[in-house]
């Protein structure tokens, strides 16, 4: 497939814009000197991934990302930053000194994955087709009901674990008074 064929498809331009936003946002997430800005750039990246899901016809997944990741997880991060009193302004000590080995490892992993993907999946077209939420629900509750229950159990365990970890142990006098 030549670049002309690729650029002739309007969906690819939407993809290009979303990909640029996502990668720029992701780079800022890991390089920003300001903790709160990093979280807000994560919002840009997650919104881009929701756009990618819409482009691929995965509407339910897209809105789940918006609700769960952007809505809940990001708020949780902001609360975590607030509670741990992370430095809110610009902080030069947020990164290690030795960035280049880390960048080298990341580049090597990217090279490995990109090389293998390019070698094996060259020019395979994604099929167009919107998956309806009802089909998704039928599939979850018929074929994937056990993984679904496992995930719900995991969420319950995480909920209880989060409460147990984060609550302060009551002082001994309070226990006796109660």
């Amino acid at each position, binding site marked *: 497939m030549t670049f002309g064929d*690729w650029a002739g498809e309007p*969906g*690819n331009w939407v*993809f290009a814009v979303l990909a640029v936003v*996502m*990668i720029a946002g*992701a780079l800022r*997430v*890991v390089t920003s000197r300001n903790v709160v800005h990093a979280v807000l750039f*994560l919002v840009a*990246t997650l919104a881009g*991934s929701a756009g*990618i*899901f819409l482009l*691929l*016809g*995965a509407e339910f*997944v897209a809105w789940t*990302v918006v609700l*769960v*990741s952007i809505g*809940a*997880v990001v708020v*949780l*991060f902001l609360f*975590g930053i607030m509670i*741990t009193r*992370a430095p809110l302004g610009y902080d030069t000590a*947020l990164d*290690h000194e030795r960035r280049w080995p880390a960048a080298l*490892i*990341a580049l090597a992993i*990217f090279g490995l*994955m*990109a090389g293998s*993907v*390019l070698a094996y*999946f*060259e*020019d*395979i*077209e*994604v*099929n167009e*087709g919107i998956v309806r939420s009802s089909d*998704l629900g039928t*599939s*979850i509750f018929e074929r*994937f009901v056990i*993984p*679904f229950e496992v*995930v719900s159990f*995991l*969420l319950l*365990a*995480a*909920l209880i*674990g989060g409460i147990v*970890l984060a609550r*302060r142990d009551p002082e001994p006098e309070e226990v006796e008074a109660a």
Partner: protein
Amino acid sequence: MTVVQFSLLASALFSIGIYGVLVRRNAIMVLLAVELMLSAVAVNLVAFGAFWQDRLASGQIFALFVIAVGAAEVGIGLAIVLLVFRNRSTANVDELDLMKW
């Protein structure tokens, strides 16, 4: 739209997440980078799901599972960071070297 472009985007996001995990010192920033890696995986799953177009929509369902597990991971991770911060008044992963020989 080809599968390759989505996979390349996902691998770029994943590598950026690995860089963030390796380079950040604040534990919350490390969790942010992990979240980037999870979203890369979800993009990959949905792209291959759209490629196969299977009747069960497995790619999308496992992307949903990844999102749910990611939410659980962030909740537990932040609770642990909070506990560590309360006990040692730092969230810097360099200073948490008790289990390092």
